[in-house]
């Protein structure tokens, strides 16, 4: 996986949070994902096909997910339920869709989002597929983007 494919996803994540939530994200240095994998409580996952195979995931600790969805909807959300699932899935969809235009010659298609809700879950990737983790910080807390793209 080429490192240059990571930047469009970072830019798209920052842009999405700025536009939809009026929240400024700060990206930390991307790192290769290695064991032990980081754990989260809510993750939106989009499958990628076409010139590259893989997935991207936007992952949150429980409290951050609640704060993000509260901010996006403009009403207080106190439980991890359908509202959180829908909003996290849509945020992930927008990030993936936006990054596509900046991937140069790499033409990809994105799936509909799936959302995983589970305390301290990990996301594993297919054997042999490298994955980059990009941690973000903002006023609502920390979150992370997991980018796994396998190209020929």
């Amino acid at each position, binding site marked *: 996986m080429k490192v240059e494919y990571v930047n469009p996803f970072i830019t798209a994540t920052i842009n999405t949070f700025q536009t*939809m939530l009026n929240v400024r994200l700060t990206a930390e240095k991307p790192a290769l994902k290695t064991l032990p994998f980081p754990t989260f409580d809510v993750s939106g996952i989009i499958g990628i096909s076409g010139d590259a195979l893989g997935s991207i995931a936007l992952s949150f600790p429980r409290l951050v997910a609640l704060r993000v*969805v509260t901010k996006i*909807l403009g009403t207080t959300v106190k439980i991890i339920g359908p509202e959180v699932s*829908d909003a996290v899935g849509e945020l992930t969809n927008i990030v993936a*869709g*936006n990054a596509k235009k900046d991937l140069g010659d790499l033409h990809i298609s994105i799936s*509909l989002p799936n959302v995983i809700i589970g305390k301290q879950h990990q996301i594993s990737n297919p054997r042999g597929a490298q994955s980059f983790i990009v941690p973000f910080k903002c006023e609502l807390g920390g979150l992370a983007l997991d980018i796994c793209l396998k190209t020929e």
Partner: protein
Amino acid sequence: MKLLLVDDSSTMRRIQRNVLEKIGISDIEEASDGLEAIQKLREKPFDIVLLDWNMPNLDGLSTLKKIRATEGIKSVRVVMCTSESEKTKIIEAVKCGANNYIVKPFTPEVLKEKLHDAGVL
């Protein structure tokens, strides 16, 4: 002004409805996929459809093609509102009859401008 808001995400429908109401469009109905949208369009007239692309059951582009091929509903104005940001996708949608195209995420100003360009406001 009667508007049909088509998006599988209830979050996006809520965000878009809030923005639309702020700019004076309050006669809004919602559909969560293309099949439901086609059904609603057949039941009553709408002035404009705000249509997402990536949806289950019937996606936005297939819905647009079906609208343009169906007597009685084919002249309704359609603005695609989607995260699909590639130029090729935008061109494809316009070729299939989209009156305008909005890339998510968008600001209220952008939505207002695109609806104006599509002849709605």
